[in-house]
């Protein structure tokens, strides 16, 4: 049985990098060819393991950036003091191999059958699983109405900028740039707070489903803000990551 994938069992395997592109000066999307990928749901994760020549290894979990059925992709932000992310952003090349396992997770996950309306709120690289959800909605032909609120520091920090700028029926995108805005900026300019949520999120009466991902402090403010706007707490899904500070 050695070398045979056991159904349901999570095993490390070797993926090959098929494409890589920069989303911002510090964020890179990496597409992977995974030999035995069982398929994933939007919002799930995969684990990456790097092993040094001396045997020391480090594992990190990354949100999958692609929809179900699409090529597996992760979008990685370089953390300057990180053990894994600088390798993935700066060293990894197309054709290289990468040890990984997945998909894992099931909490921060959306499928078309889950319905909506959806309010997606992302801070910084917290946009990654929300992008997977948006792509999944499109792939599945869902007409669930979506509002996306995306907070970043500066215009050059916006990940998936061109993709999000494409008009899609039923999808409204709101931006807030909290530190620096381009000339003529018509979006928001402050950190997400309750009044901003009240302006952009669906009224609670529509029984919306919320996905909130970003740095811990950002997620706390948004999740408690939505609950204060009478959202059902169990319909506010959250994912927190350390991130690199203020958004």
């Amino acid at each position: 049985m050695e070398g045979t994938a056991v159904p349901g069992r999570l095993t490390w395997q070797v993926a090959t990098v098929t494409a890589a592109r920069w989303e911002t000066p510090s964020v890179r999307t990496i597409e992977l060819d995974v030999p035995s990928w069982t398929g994933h749901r939007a919002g799930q994760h995969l684990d990456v393991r790097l092993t040094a020549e001396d045997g020391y290894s480090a594992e990190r979990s990354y949100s999958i950036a692609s929809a179900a059925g699409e090529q597996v992709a992760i979008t990685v932000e370089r953390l300057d003091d990180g053990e894994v992310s600088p390798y993935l952003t700066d060293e990894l090349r197309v054709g290289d191999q990468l040890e990984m396992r997945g998909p894992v997770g099931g909490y921060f996950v959306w499928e078309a059958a889950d319905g909506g309306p959806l309010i997606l709120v992302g801070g910084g690289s917290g946009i990654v699983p929300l992008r997977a959800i948006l792509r999944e909605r499109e792939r599945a032909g869902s007409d669930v109405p979506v509002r996306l609120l995306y907070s970043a520091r500066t215009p050059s920090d916006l990940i998936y900028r061109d993709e999000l700028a494409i008009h899609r029926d039923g999808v409204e995108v709101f931006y807030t740039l909290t530190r620096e805005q381009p000339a003529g900026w018509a979006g928001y300019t402050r950190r997400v707070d309750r009044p901003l949520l009240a302006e952009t999120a669906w009224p609670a009466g529509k029984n919306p489903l919320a996905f909130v991902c970003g740095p811990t402090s950002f997620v706390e403010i948004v999740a408690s803000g939505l609950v204060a706007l009478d959202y059902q707490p169990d319909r506010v899904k959250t994912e927190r990551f350390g991130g690199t500070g203020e958004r």
Partner: protein
Amino acid sequence: MDELDGNRAAGLLQEVFGAEMTTAAATCASCGSVAPIGESDLYLGGPGTVIRCRTCTSILIVITQVRGMNCVDLMGMRALDTEGTPG
């Protein structure tokens, strides 16, 4: 160490339990609050993986690797419901 949440431990938990566990509802042995593992606090900075209650910060789960073996401490949980939270 920055604060993460249980979603990032999905792989390790699946390795240990053999199933997806982030949707499972943990009942904290200290304060009795019930929450999905995915929403619990996760700390990777010390030895091993530590999952704490988001309500009272008590330790729910500790997983350490010793010579390739996972050592799992679940004493901080009164219950673990794989059906998830109600509603």
